[in-house]
């Protein structure tokens, strides 16, 4: 048996191209395996420890304020401030008779009686009454920005509830201070989230009345503060709702056993000379004793003194910042005393305007409290929490079991769980997990291709040596012993490929880690030798390939000696060849010859076809992915002229704001609200109740738009359709986006039933339904977004038709300052485009690499197979040379036999990959309300075709040398 093995070893030289191809495949698979796992080990080995030591949060909690804050809480918050506000002299409000008519006349009469009782002459009563009311309105109610007063000035608490429903106004004198504010002051309509409650028709008693100008307590407080601060030029009149929220958090922390902090950060966007893109920073106060999200100091010291800061290490490297040097942020110089990471910003997405991390322009900045206060920028506050008795991994599903009850608690509005959703942390953890899986699968795919090559080589050899094998068997060698001789291929390939692959992997893991460092702010281990990967690089291919090869060899050698010795035993044709011969009879001789040669060996045909198909899948995936983001941005903002989208904290109603004089010419004012979708009426009349209700954003627009464009997939403006008569009573028109269409499988002609719907303590509160007929589809892909006639939504919500809470503009006016508490956010389209362009640029490099890699793999595999084809057909090639066929003619019939299969395989890979992606996206869309366009341009398809065919023809070119070397004497050899 050893002699047979040695004999095979000597014969390897003749099969050198096949062995090189085989060894190369094993080398690539083990190199990728070693590279990725070594790199991931370096990142992973410290990450859990780092996250544990720095107390990275398990969850972010937003409390259900309107459910928690009682009317007394709100009153207390105001009273503390209002008592001093009363003393402030403000411009007097002139009260007119028309204004008096709006007040409760009984209350006014009470006031008149009180004035008369105080001794004021009757002819002066009206004047004094108006002065008093004017003074009241100039005080707290004026601060509310609402002229519509109702009650005597003494009852300051009542003014808090301005803007609430008339019900609240009527009941304000008899209010129960312990009831939740929300009971009488419904929150902003439609801030419902998707729920598991099946859609059902709400009963009348479950619906609050149409409130009209309802706002929530936080918004009211914020608006008060803003108005008063801007009028008095004094920032110190802010109210602190956390004084009331923190006790609730304390209760929750006891119940669910976690530690929490109130996290505050400011997001600052600023420009830098010489750079057309903005910089962005998330600014926080450095506190080494924070029990959750403790800062990690890499180098230098904490920023103790004023105007001292720390920045992230990659940011410092990219901007050439040295320790103790000065760096300018938003026009002011700060001393960089340290380099630090924020542990909850592993992927530092600092601002939603620029969601993709830009290592040169984005950083987390730590500073002291005083410097933090001086920084401008929009402040965000939320509670970050960490479970006390959980020792598991941050990616473990068991963490979700701890989060679930917190999420269901009625005091909690929203929980962002670190393990799955928080992108700043989970992006890293998920990438590590997914890359390990991908690396393993990649190795298995390459080894599978390697096994096919081994089988082809063995089969050829066994066919050539069948007489010798027959003789060996006749002499008494059994199949097991003979088969062992063929193990030389997997053994030699695995040893050489495995060792070289491991070495290459060790070299390449360094650059891979450096690449990761530019994406993630996390300390990374130095390289450490792990014998495991050397062993696995040898053992995995050696055992898997040897075992499979041995089994296949046993199968191929199964025939009895006599059958092998019989002349012509190798001439039998398979069923495929017979079928092909019949089917191809009308074709020309050359085509028939090619197809019959191709059908002769189904194994080779399968390998070439599969290889082309898989290469095609990879190329198509890469090309679709490369255009996906571009297309999403293009389609979302197709033809849009706006640069900014300003979102307000609450509805702005010009008709009730005294002295409203804002100019919004050439801007688009939108009324947007989240409503609950719970039923669909299909075109054919079928009513479908959704098993899971969805929150849909409804944007009310004017008939003529200045900047916003609403287009369909052809790029045509479709906004006019919202204002056409659909001949249905009480049904307005709606344009939905692609995500709604994909997720709910709705189409033009279906009707959506929406409602304002709130679940509080399991009580469903909602208002009347609103029916919308789908008239077209807008090709945008983020969230469940729709457009309606503004008049229809404002009427439904009880606002005036001039109300708005979102503006599209191309000019960032001072009134749109994000620090204005009435402004919820300012989205900068230009910043987003530039941010994404960086990612697209990087993605383009990786696309070229992936396509080149796919092409190279195809080249190797096809070269090996076509070389085997030449080897197999040596006698035929020689015969044809002897007969007088030219080399070009021989090449065209012997080597080009797989051309149609390669072409067809690639063409099939296009719809196949599109189908796979559509399936994956439909799964994603179900959970994340998100879809993407899956398109491959003609240009992209041609690029893929060129790559595949180029690899194919280059491979054939390489095999041509082997063909040229076949001698004429081969045909004359006697067996």
């Amino acid at each position: 048996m050893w002699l047979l093995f040695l004999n095979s070893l000597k014969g390897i030289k003749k099969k050198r191209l096949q062995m090189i191809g085989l060894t190369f495949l094993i080398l690539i698979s083990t190199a990728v395996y070693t590279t990725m796992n070594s790199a991931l080990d370096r990142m992973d080995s410290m990450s859990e420890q780092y996250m544990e030591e720095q107390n990275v949060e398990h969850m972010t909690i937003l409390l259900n304020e309107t459910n928690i804050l009682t009317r007394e809480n709100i009153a207390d918050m105001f009273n503390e401030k209002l008592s001093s506000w009363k003393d402030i002299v403000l411009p007097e409000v002139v009260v007119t008779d028309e204004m008096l008519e709006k007040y409760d006349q009984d209350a006014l009469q009470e006031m008149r009686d009180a004035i008369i009782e105080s001794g004021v002459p009757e002819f002066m009563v009206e004047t004094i009454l108006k002065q008093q009311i004017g003074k009241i309105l100039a005080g707290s109610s004026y601060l509310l920005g609402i002229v519509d007063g109702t009650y005597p000035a003494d009852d300051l608490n009542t003014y808090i509830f301005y803007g609430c429903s008339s019900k609240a106004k009527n009941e304000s004198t008899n209010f129960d201070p312990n009831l939740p504010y929300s009971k009488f002051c419904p929150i902003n309509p439609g801030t419902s989230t998707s729920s598991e409650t099946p859609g059902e028709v709400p009963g009348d008693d479950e619906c609050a009345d149409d409130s009209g100008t309802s706002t929530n307590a936080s918004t009211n407080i914020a608006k008060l503060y803003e108005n008063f601060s801007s009028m008095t030029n004094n920032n110190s009149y802010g109210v602190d709702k956390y004084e009331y929220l923190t006790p609730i958090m304390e209760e929750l922390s006891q119940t669910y056993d976690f530690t929490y902090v109130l996290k505050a950060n400011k997001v600052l966007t600023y420009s830098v000379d010489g750079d057309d893109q903005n910089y962005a920073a998330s600014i926080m106060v450095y506190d080494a004793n924070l029990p959750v999200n403790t800062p990690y100091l890499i180098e230098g010291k904490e920023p103790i003194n004023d105007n001292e800061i720390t920045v992230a290490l990659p940011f410092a490297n990219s901007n050439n910042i040295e320790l103790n040097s000065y760096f300018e942020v938003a026009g002011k110089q700060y001393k960089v005393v340290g380099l630090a990471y924020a542990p909850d910003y592993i992927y530092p997405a600092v601002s939603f305007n620029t969601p993709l991390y830009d290592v040169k322009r984005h950083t987390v900045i730590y500073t002291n409290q005083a410097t933090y206060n001086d920084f401008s920028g929009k402040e965000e506050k939320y509670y970050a929490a960490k479970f006390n008795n959980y020792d598991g991994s941050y990616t473990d599903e068991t963490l979700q079991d701890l989060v679930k009850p917190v999420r269901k608690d009625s005091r909690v509005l929203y929980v962002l769980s670190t393990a799955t959703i928080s992108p700043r942390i989970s992006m890293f953890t998920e990438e590590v997990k997914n890359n390990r899986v991908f690396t393993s699968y990649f190795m298995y795919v390459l080894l599978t291709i390697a096994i096919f090559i081994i089988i082809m080589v063995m089969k050829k050899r066994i066919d050539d040596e069948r007489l010798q094998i027959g003789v060996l068997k006749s002499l008494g060698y059994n199949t097991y012993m003979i088969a062992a001789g063929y193990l030389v291929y997997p053994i030699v390939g695995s040893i050489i490929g495995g060792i070289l692959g491991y070495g290459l992997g060790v070299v390449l893991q360094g650059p891979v880690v450096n690449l990761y460092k530019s994406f993630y702010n996390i300390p990374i281990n130095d390289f450490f030798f792990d014998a495991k990967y050397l062993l696995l690089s040898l053992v995995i291919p050696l055992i898997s390939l040897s075992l499979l090869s041995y089994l296949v060899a046993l199968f191929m050698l199964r025939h009895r000696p006599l059958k092998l010795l019989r002349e012509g035993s190798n001439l039998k044709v398979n069923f495929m060849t017979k079928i092909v011969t019949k089917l191809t009879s009308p074709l020309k001789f050359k085509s028939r010859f090619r197809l019959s040669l191709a059908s002769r060996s189904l194994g080779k045909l399968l390998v070439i076809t599969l290889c082309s198909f898989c290469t095609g899948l990879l190329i198509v995936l890469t090309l679709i992915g490369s255009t996906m983001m571009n297309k999403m941005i293009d389609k979302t903002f197709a033809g849009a002229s706006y640069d900014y989208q300003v979102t307000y904290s609450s509805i702005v109603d010009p008709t009730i704001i005294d002295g409203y004089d804002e100019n919004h010419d050439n801007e688009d004012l939108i009324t947007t609200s989240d409503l609950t979708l719970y039923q669909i009426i299909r075109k054919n009349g079928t009513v479908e109740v959704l098993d899971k209700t969805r929150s849909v954003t409804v944007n009310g627009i004017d008939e003529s738009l200045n900047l916003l464009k609403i287009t369909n997939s052809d790029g045509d403006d479709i906004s006019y359709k919202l204002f056409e008569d659909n001949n249905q009573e009480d049904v307005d028109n709606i344009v939905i986006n692609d995500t709604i269409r994909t997720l709910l499988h709705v189409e033009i002609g279906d009707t959506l039933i929406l409602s304002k719907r709130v679940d509080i303590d399991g009580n469903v509160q909602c208002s009347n339904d609103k029916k919308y007929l789908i008239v077209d589809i807008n090709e945008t892909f983020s969230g469940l977004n729709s457009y309606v006639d503004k008049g229809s939504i404002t009427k439904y919500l009880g606002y005036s038709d001039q109300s708005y809470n979102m503006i599209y503009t191309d000019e960032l006016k001072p009134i749109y300052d994000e620090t204005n508490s009435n402004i919820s956010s300012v989205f900068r389209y230009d910043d987003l485009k530039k941010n994404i362009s960086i990612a697209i640029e990087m993605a383009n490099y990786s696309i070229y690499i992936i396509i080149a890699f796919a092409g190279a793999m195809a080249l190797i595999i096809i070269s090996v197979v076509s070389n085997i084809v030449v080897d197999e057909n040596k006698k035929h090639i020689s015969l044809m040379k002897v007969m007088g066929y030219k080399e070009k003619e021989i090449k065209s019939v012997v080597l080009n036999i797989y051309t149609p299969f390669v072409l067809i395989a690639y063409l099939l890979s296009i719809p196949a990959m599109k189908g796979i992606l559509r399936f994956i996206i439909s799964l994603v869309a179900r959970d994340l309300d998100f879809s993407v366009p899956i398109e491959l341009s003609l240009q992209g398809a041609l690029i893929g075709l060129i790559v595949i065919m180029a690899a194919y023809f280059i491979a054939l070119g390489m095999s041509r040398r082997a063909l040229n070397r076949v001698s004429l004497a081969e045909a004359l050899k006697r067996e």
Partner: protein
Amino acid sequence: MADVIYELKGVSKIYKVSETITKALDNIDLKLYEGEIIVVLGPSGSGKSTLLNVLSGIDNATSGKVLFLDKQIEKYSLDELTSYRREYLGFIFQTYNLISNLDVKENIELGMQLAKNPININEIIDSVELTSQKNKFPYQLSGGQQQRVSIARALVKNPKVLFCDEPTGALDETTGKIVLKTIQELNKKYKTTIVIITHNPSIAQMANNVIRINSGKIASNIRNEKVLDASEIRWA
């Protein structure tokens, strides 16, 4: 006397492998006439295959002249030799060399593709008496039938010369005679010059010219006065 189709003048073929020099052909002078059946006899290693290679342009002579229809083919380039074989020659091999995944008709078509004016394929199939087997694959045929396919493939392009390298080497007497009879009939019909390389002396009985070769030299060159029909050959 028919025209000379081949003339060899002082042709030698020397192989050098490491230090060993082998003279496969040693100063051969020879004339072959058009339309005749020529049998080249000799034991293994005598040089008869080398002679076939040199005559057919598969190999080049080391020295001397090889004239085909008065053209010196030993000076031809590789492409010219390919064209020469394509236009003028046909080949039959001991091991038939049929393409296993082409049926009978397609194997013959392989030869037909090379000819400017091929013989009608059905006619040639009839000539070799394989009409009922034309859609069968080689593995479904006997040795003799396979050899007849090989003959048809070679003759379909109506070559001037047909080289037969041990055409009956793998066949029994009966089948061998059938094959030889086929060759003989086709020679009569198409006037193709037939050169048969063999170690079987029986075949010489059907030849016009019998050349014996030994150790690379012409041992004898005899013209048969009586040419037997293939079926009358006394098999050795």
